[in-house]
């Protein structure tokens, strides 16, 4: 059995009148890749952004239920949101580099969390860029604007930036959907390497990708959790007819 890292209990999210997530209860295994699959608009991204409380930024959002990370409910009053977000690195669908140099993009996170020593920052930047498989391509031009990188490189930069604040989890929101196949494969390879150290959640609507990466699968449909379980089980012997239909490509 998997050891749970994140425990989601009766999570409900409303955007004004719209009920986006309905009574989600599921455990996310530690140091595994969990794929969240389901058709567009089923609440995959909302689920992901609930886990680092980025849903707070949405106008008119209402959240109820618990999300326990290391046994602390991140929706408790008086919780330090910045600490939660530091723990939960996010890779967005579209690469979102900050308006600064490649170096400063990586160093931004450590700096706001109190790292001042330049030498330490240099080490962090090099280490994270290597982890993300970008170091060799950018080591000669760290001072250049991040906006000059290709989209694929930018996404790896975002991965490196997320790693730089030493998170426990990586929340990936269709991180390869905007990339060319080679860059996408690059990201996938890095994630497979990283799962020994991080709990990874991976939103995708590409089933083949989920099959390649996932150890554990969560299937959402119209805001409801239809099925979850180890990847092999869900993909080969889904217990719910809707999961079966989705996996066989009847809809989606």
């Amino acid at each position: 059995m998997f050891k749970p890292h994140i425990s989601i209990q009766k999570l409900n999210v409303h955007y004004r009148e719209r009920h986006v997530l309905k009574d989600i209860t599921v455990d996310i295994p530690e140091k595994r890749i969990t794929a969240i699959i389901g058709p567009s608009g089923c609440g995959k991204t909302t689920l992901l952004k609930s886990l680092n409380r980025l849903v707070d930024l949405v106008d008119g959002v209402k959240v109820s239920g618990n999300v326990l990370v290391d046994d602390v409910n991140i929706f408790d009053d008086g919780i330090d949101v910045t600490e939660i977000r530091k723990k939960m690195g996010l890779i967005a669908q579209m690469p979102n580099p900050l308006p600064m140099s490649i170096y400063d993009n990586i160093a931004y996170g450590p700096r706001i969390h109190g790292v001042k020593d330049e030498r330490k920052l240099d080490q962090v930047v090099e280490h994270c860029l290597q982890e993300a498989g970008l170091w060799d391509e950018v080591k000669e031009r760290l001072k250049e604007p991040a906006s000059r990188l290709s989209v694929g490189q930018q996404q790896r930069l975002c991965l490196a930036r997320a790693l730089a604040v030493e998170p426990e989890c990586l929340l990936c929101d269709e991180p390869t959907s905007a990339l060319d196949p080679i860059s996408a494969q690059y990201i996938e390879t890095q994630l497979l390497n990283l799962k020994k150290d991080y709990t990874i959640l991976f939103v995708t609507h590409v089933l083949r990708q989920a099959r390649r990466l996932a150890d554990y699968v969560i299937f959402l449909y119209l805001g409801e959790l239809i099925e979850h379980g180890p990847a092999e089980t869900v993909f080969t012997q889904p217990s719910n007819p809707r999961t079966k239909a989705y996996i066989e490509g009847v809809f989606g």
Partner: protein
Amino acid sequence: MNKRKLEEAFFKGLMLLSTSIVVGSLLAVFAVVILNGAPALSISMLTQTPKGGYYLGKEGGILNAIIGSLYLASGATALAFLLSLPIALYLNEYAGKSRFASLTRLSLDVLWGIPSIVYGAFAFIIMLYLGARASLLWGIITVTLFVFPIMTRAIDEVVKMSPFKLREASYALGSTRLETALKVLTRQTLPGMLTAVILAFGRAIGDAASVLLTAGYTDSVPRSLFDPVATLPLAVFFQLGTPIPEVQQRAYASGVILLVLVLLLSIASRLSTRKFMKYLIK
């Protein structure tokens, strides 16, 4: 030719016409000021203070007004920026879509619309109440009041336009609102902010009405914030108001100097923004 092509050609012509009217007016203003002012332009205009009472001596220069205007406009622009940046960041990052935010924006728009002479009169009454004398300081305060709504709304717009994904990226790393505002949004909006500052500086250096009652009258360069200060717009105004043709010519020459100052400043700022543009995220 079919109808759609005709339409296209017609509106293209219309736009070209509008554009040429604008560019033409600008050139006409330049031409009139330069042609009328050129005979009176000289080095001494730039390097000396007026000889003979209050610009009427036909001799000397308008150094007092040049320096005065630069002091006044720089002081007011700097002060206005100190007000504007926090307001604009607060409106966007903290106030959200609250009623308070829309009320503030409405007030700023109303303030923007108030004529500068009203600001002058307002500050003048306060000065009377406090028993203060017209001075550089009061000129700066008045002009600040009059330019900060312009600057705030201009900065507000560029901050509002900056992409949501930047904020998301910053928050996702565990930034506070303040860090996101000061370290990310200011970087992204720097060129826009510079434009706002230049816009405000242009208004500040060019306005006569707000300083008419508050900055005082003098032929010398101010030595402290509490000295009265001369300004270029008022130099133009007073010289143009005399019946003496030579002095009127000097009014146009002062106008040329004012134009050149503003022009130099906008070119300098354009060049400096280019350096930051490359970091921007589209």
